[in-house]
């Protein structure tokens, strides 16, 4: 087993570790033993034929990891399957359930000769609209992970013994028949949150077979508080469904509406559509949050607060709205004016609250108040009351019924300790690693005699279970899910399970008594029953088959608008639970899921590990983030290794001084520091679960920090080193001309303000007649008004263009390979700065400085103005990279592609050349997509249409910030974007004529809070302070 071989390998060295693995004694022995597992000893008469067989087998096994390849079936192509052309990609609609949110995201997965290679959003689905988050896109890499477990494992005398699914089926038949006879007493299931109707159906079947069986739910980053708040407000569990397109004033209380929210993709798209810089057309976003999220960066007003104070800010808003603005309390508000008046001196006074209340009260039915999962239930309740009172319910927010959460992990541990459970089936999750630190799940598991764990790999929980069963990846299995609006999504496999894994549904069906469950039939039956059918899905019914086929083709069944509900308030009492504000002696700890790794289930995903965090730009690590003033008060420096102590738990973490962080608050993220995952994530970062206690899953007040005296090396893609005063001042000075921005009023008064923000230079003339472009002239425009810095483009580019991952050390040496990066700048007051995100990729300059200096002409201009990189001509002088003013060229310092496993190479996009060592690479504007579209247009004898070509970054951008097209077509979207007044070229004074231009960022602050910085054309920043 791989886990035994490489216990000493850590994720940090991952990109060397496959070679180390190859050099490890175990592997050597494996290779050296002439007949590795599976091949009998030498045959008696050692024939030539036998020799060749063995040699071929050894060669196959020398494929480094000895993975089991998909079974090869040799079928002549005399009869080609319908609609399949070898070498041509196919796309299938499927869906992924977001971790912890019990919400499916509709996806479109590209498959090349039977191999899933890229994940995108399903453009037909109204809550995806073709966009996909970084996590969704990176999930394709997990299929090809070499450390997934390859067979069931049974623990016998503390030894892991390889078994087969048949062994398990035999075992299960005996065990579960016996359980069924005693009505399932002593049987318990532990599962994650899921919206799958098939799972619900199978759960009912299990409940029928084992009526006394218990069911528990474990989600480290769940939405219990949201459901509980809705239950209190409306009498049953609901999830709120945001309709940002109708919202003109958005109040986001720690909800990260545009990024981490279940409906973030559509929210972001609709938010962006509401940012057209024209009078009375722009929405206004207020964000109250503790750590810095993309939503906060996009906000017109961002108010950093400790997490516990955010709900109080919401209470302050309620006071302001109901008492100062005179908005009537709705029926069933659960609180009287008198009680509200009593809140007055318990809530903080924030200037932004008054402005927000004014905006919300003035735009009834056009406001939206959302509260995040880490806020208490009463805050969700209060938000519901506010939305009802302001007439927003039914317009900007509706509700979708949700299942009430089951008993949680604490209840399971209690039941186990009480000896009430002897057989535990863990369908999902890794409770041993992800339980709060004060909950001893490992010891509790030992109390059960039979424990069965379905998991991707032999993790900490599997190691303590009797049976480990390999789980099929969602791209390998059948399933279904509900989208955020309640529409049914199809989960269909693109490849046979690589390692014989089975899905949760198949395991449930097996335990429910189906000896040979097939995921396809299970889902089909659910679909049949969902349409009102009874029993099994019919084998041959043309009408059903047509519906089923359409469902699989579209990937979803749309839900009628009526499915969204507008329930009435119940009148349950609203109580303000005031928390004391933290101070420097008594800090607050915030525990949040990592924006990249989630609750840790993406820890083994190299793309996400190397994806820079939006705020910190840290890769392959997590940090304890705190504000500059807090750091100064505690005498903590950036990069100090701290010891955090919270509720009796301790953990070490490096300090990251993050401008704009809530005061006296420290944020840590979950999902890192795993010891039990594959080679990629093992030991990367610091485990924040170690600080979590069951009573305070999101942290709380009472954090103590001590300095260990050690320093810790963080790898960041930006601001690698603490910056000196000279560099700091210069950066401050430059940002205004790099990311040009203005308030809406200023923009309307001075539409040409962008022209006054750059370097003043003489007219740019050319000494020679420049090349004209008569055919297409490709260009790009990026709208900084709507870019929220969500990183989706970066992962899309990585997947599309086979961009290698280089590991923490190499990023630490500034050698990251990403072709598109998101520059993040802070400006102004470090405690509450303005934050700007700016995607930067090769701008395909017409007078490209890189082209001129390449001695071997390896980078040249095409007839359509692309700055093309000729990999096989490049000798690697790196002169082009030096001379690139945007520093977007990436050099292969090592043989990066050679270092990825053979299995993972199956994921590579065959349309894009992989680059060898010593070669320069950079953004190509996805030239392969341009050519594919051109060929298609040529075959159809028509000109290329605008919008037909979408680079990967533009395709996945949730906010449509990136527009690509033909600059020679005045009607193209990109031409129109460039014709806007706020369009500008970065570093235009160099006269390099970049083909990528930027649209200046226009903000829409409340007039009373905006300070019109006329000189620089940007406001100097609002000055609310936190606690």
């Amino acid at each position, binding site marked *: 087993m791989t886990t035994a071989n490489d216990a000493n390998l850590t994720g940090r060295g991952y990109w060397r570790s496959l070679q180390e693995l190859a050099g490890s004694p175990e592997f050597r022995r494996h290779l050296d033993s002439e007949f590795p597992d599976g091949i009998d000893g030498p045959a008696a008469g050692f024939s030539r034929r036998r020799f060749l067989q063995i040699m071929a087998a050894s060669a196959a096994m020398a494929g480094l990891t000895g993975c089991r390849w998909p079974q090869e079936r040799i079928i002549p192509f005399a009869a080609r399957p319908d609609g399949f052309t070898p070498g041509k990609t196919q796309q299938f609609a499927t869906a992924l359930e977001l971790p912890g949110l019990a919400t499916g995201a509709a996806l479109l997965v590209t498959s090349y000769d039977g191999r899933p290679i890229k994940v995108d959003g399903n453009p037909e689905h109204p809550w995806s609209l073709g966009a996909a988050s970084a996590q969704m896109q990176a999930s394709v890499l997990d299929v090809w992970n070499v450390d997934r477990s390859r067979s069931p494992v049974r623990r016998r005398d503390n030894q892991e013994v390889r078994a087969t699914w048949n062994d398990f089926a035999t075992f299960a038949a005996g065990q579960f028949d016996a359980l069924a006879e005693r009505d399932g007493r002593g049987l318990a299931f532990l599962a994650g949150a899921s919206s799958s109707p098939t799972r619900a159906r199978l759960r009912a079947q299990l409940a029928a077979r084992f009526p006394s069986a218990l069911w528990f739910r474990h989600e480290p980053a769940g939405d219990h508080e949201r459901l509980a708040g809705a239950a209190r407000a409306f009498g049953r569990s609901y999830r709120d469904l945001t309709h940002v397109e109708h919202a003109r004033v958005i109040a986001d209380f720690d909800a990260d509406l545009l990024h981490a929210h279940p409906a973030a993709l559509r929210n972001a798209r609709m938010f962006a559509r509401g940012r057209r810089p024209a009078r009375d057309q722009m929405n206004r976003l207020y964000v109250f949050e503790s750590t810095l999220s993309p939503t906060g960066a996009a906000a017109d007003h961002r108010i950093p607060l400790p997490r516990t104070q955010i709900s109080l800010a919401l209470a302050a808003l309620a006071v302001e709205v109901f008492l100062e603005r005179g908005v009537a309390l709705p029926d069933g508000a659960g609180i009287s004016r008198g009680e509200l008046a009593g809140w007055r001196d318990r809530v903080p006074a924030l200037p932004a609250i008054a402005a927000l209340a004014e905006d919300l009260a003035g735009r009834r039915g056009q406001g939206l108040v959302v509260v995040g999962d880490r806020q208490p239930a009463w805050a969700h309740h209060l938000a519901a009351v506010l939305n009802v009172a302001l007439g927003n319910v039914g317009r900007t927010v509706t509700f979708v019924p949700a299942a009430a959460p089951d008993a949680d992990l604490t209840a399971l541990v209690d039941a186990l300790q009480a000896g009430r459970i002897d057989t535990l089936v863990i369908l999902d999750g890794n409770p041993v690693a992800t339980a709060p630190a004060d909950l001893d799940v490992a010891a509790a598991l030992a109390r059960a005699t039979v424990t069965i764990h379905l998991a991707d790999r032999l993790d900490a929980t599997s190691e303590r279970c009797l049976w480990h069963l390999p789980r099929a990846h969602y791209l390998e299995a059948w399933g279904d899910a509900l989208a955020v609006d309640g529409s049914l999504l199809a989960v269909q496999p693109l490849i046979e399970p690589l390692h014989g894994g089975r899905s949760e549904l198949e395991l449930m069906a097996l335990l429910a008594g189906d000896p040979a469950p097939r995921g396809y039939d299970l889902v089909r039956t659910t679909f049949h029953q969902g349409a009102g059918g009874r029993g099994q899905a019919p084998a041959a019914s043309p009408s059903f088959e047509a519906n089923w086929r359409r469902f699989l083709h579209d990937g979803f069944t749309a839900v009628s608008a009526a499915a969204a509900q507008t329930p009435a308030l119940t009148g349950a009492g609203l109580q303000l639970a005031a928390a004391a504000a933290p101070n420097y002696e008594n800090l607050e700890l915030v525990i949040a899921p990592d924006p990249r790794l989630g609750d840790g289930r993406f820890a083994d995903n190299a793309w996400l590990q190397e994806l820079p965090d939006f705020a910190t730009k840290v890769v392959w690590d997590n940090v304890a983030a705190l504000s500059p003033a807090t750091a100064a008060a505690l005498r903590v420096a950036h990069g100090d290794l701290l010891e955090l102590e919270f509720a009796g738990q301790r953990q070490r973490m490096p300090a990251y001084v993050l401008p704009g962080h809530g005061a006296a608050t420290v944020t840590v993220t979950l999902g890192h520091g795993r010891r039990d995952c594959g080679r990629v994530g093992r030991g990367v970062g610091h485990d924040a679960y170690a600080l979590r206690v069951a009573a305070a899953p999101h942290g709380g007040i009472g954090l103590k920090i001590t300095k260990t005296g050690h320093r810790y090396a963080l790898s960041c893609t*930006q*601001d*690698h*080193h603490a910056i*000196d005063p*000279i*560099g700091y001042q*210069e*950066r401050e*000075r*430059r*940002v205004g001309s*790099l990311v040009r921005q203005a308030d809406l009023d200023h923009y309307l008064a001075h539409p040409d303000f962008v022209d006054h923000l750059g*370097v003043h230079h003489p007219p740019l003339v050319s000494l020679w007649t420049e090349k004209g472009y008569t055919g297409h002239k490709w260009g790009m425009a990026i709208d900084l008004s709507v870019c929220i810095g969500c990183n989706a483009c970066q992962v899309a580019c990585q997947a599309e263009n086979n961009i290698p991952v280089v590991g923490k050390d*190499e990023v630490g*040496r*500034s*050698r*990251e390979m990403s072709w598109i*990066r998101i*520059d*993040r*700048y802070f400006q102004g007051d470090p405690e509450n700065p303005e934050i700007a995100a*700016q995607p*930067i990729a090769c701008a395909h300059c017409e007078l490209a*400085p890189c082209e*001129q*200096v*390449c*001695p*071997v*002409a390896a980078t040249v201009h095409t007839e359509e103005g692309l700055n093309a990189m000729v990999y096989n*001509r*490049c*000798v*690697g*002088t*790196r*002169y082009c*990279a*030096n*001379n690139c*003013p*945007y*520093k977007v*060229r*990436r*050099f*292969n*310092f*090592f*043989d990066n592609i050679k270092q990825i496993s053979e299995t993972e190479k199956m994921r590579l996009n065959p349309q894009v050349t992989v680059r*060898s*060592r*010593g*070669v*320069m690479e950079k953004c190509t504007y996805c030239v392969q997509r341009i050519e594919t579209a051109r060929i298609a247009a040529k075959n159809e004898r028509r000109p290329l249409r605008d919008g037909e070509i979408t680079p990967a970054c533009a395709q996945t951008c949730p906010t449509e910030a990136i527009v690509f097209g033909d600059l020679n077509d005045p009607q193209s979207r990109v031409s129109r974007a460039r014709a806007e007044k706020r369009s500008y070229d970065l*570093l235009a004074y*160099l006269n*390099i004529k970049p083909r990528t231009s930027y649209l200046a960022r226009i903000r829409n602050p409340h007039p009373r809070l905006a300070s019109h910085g006329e000189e620089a054309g940007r406001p100097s920043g609002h000055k609310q302070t936190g606690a």
Partner: protein
Amino acid sequence: MHRAIVLGEHDNTAYVPGRPTELILDGHTFTSVTDTVCGIVETPRPPRAWYIAFAVTVSLTVMLFAMLYLLITRGIGVWGVNSTVGWGWAIVNFVFWVGIGHAGTLISAILFLLRQKWRTSINRFAEAMTIFAVVCAGIFPAIHVGRVWAVHWLFPLPNYHAMWPNFRSPLLWDVFAVGTYATVSLLFWYTGMVPDLATLRDRARTKWRQIIYGIFAIGWRGSHRHWHRFEKAYLILAGLATPLVLSVHSVVSFDFAVSIIPGWHTTIFPPYFVAGAVFSGFAMVGTLLVPARQWFGLKPFITRHHLDNMNKIILATGSMVGYAYAMEFFIAWYGGNAFESFAFVNRAFGPYAWAYWIMISCNVISPQLFWFKRIRTSLPAMWIIYIFVNIGMWFERFVITVTSLSRDFLPSSWAYYKPTTVDILTFAGSFGLFFTLVLLFVRYLPMVAMAEVKTVMPAASAHGGPAHPVGDYHGDIPQDDLDRGKEAH
């Protein structure tokens, strides 16, 4: 072995009007010159110190090749360069070594054309040093590319891509400039050495020496016809080499000046680089000559007068370099480009300020001490200043290359460059190679150009005598010198 009797060192640095300076002291005759210079090469066993030095330098050379092996098998990543700072020590070392290679050709060609007679004592050594420095320099551009096996694509050779190289690229100009320079320098050095090689051949006592020196002496018999052709060829080569002295470092400076990076994009670079190159070249010649004249009994040939002259050149070029530094700053401010001015403020006060101030102290301040004659003629003092200049000029290239790249236009991509051990060992190894070649040179080739030195000795004149005009004429003696000689007689 003939040893000149040295009774204290004769000070010939004083300028006596009307009396030409004696360039060769201690009453050397043609025979004693030949005996002294050839004696070094002919001694059957070099001193023990030579063996020790050779062992050290060869070890360093082996280390150089080990580092190159590591580099070529693993990739450029073994160095400290990154996406922001694409050029690091390799390019710094390249410019450093090319700069050092300047002194030789300057001394041999330009001083020859300017009839600076004192050059004869040091030109062989300086030229040899030039060749070796260019050898060291040549390694770096070849190995600093990502795909060493394709580096020949920089030459306009027929290839399967059917492509010309890009003639707009300064790196290509570099290939031609350095290539031409290396070729002409080598020819110049070798041509000048032919009569001396013939002398060694004629004095050889073993078969092998006879054969090998014989081959390289290409049949030199010292006939008038030989001398005539030799002097013509030498003059032509000097004429060819002279523009190269100016061109090669100008072209090297284009690598930077033609780019758009603030701190690189400056028109002052060509003259500034040439001055810097001469500066560093003379410092390196001095660094080697001061001990060599001591160890090999060459004090009568390489006198204080010679060193004094060299120091004056160092003072002059050092001041030019200092002026260039000041002018860069002035233009950065006067030009009014914020990116440009930041590049220079950042140099002096940013993260690499330490390197900048090492450069300033070594290159601008230390040579100013040569205004004092006492320092200019003191062997220990001048040697220490030579070392400072060598260090300073390496740092100048480091400052130019690295600081400009590390903080260019977009603050998001600013990065700090740190060399790795491989970088450091490669640079140390290049010194090993350089000194290995120097040690082989002093062991097997005449260190002083005997034939040329003899022409500046009084005995070379038709009438002899100490007051005779001292000439360095390979061709006809100009009439006015002859007249002056008659007057003096």
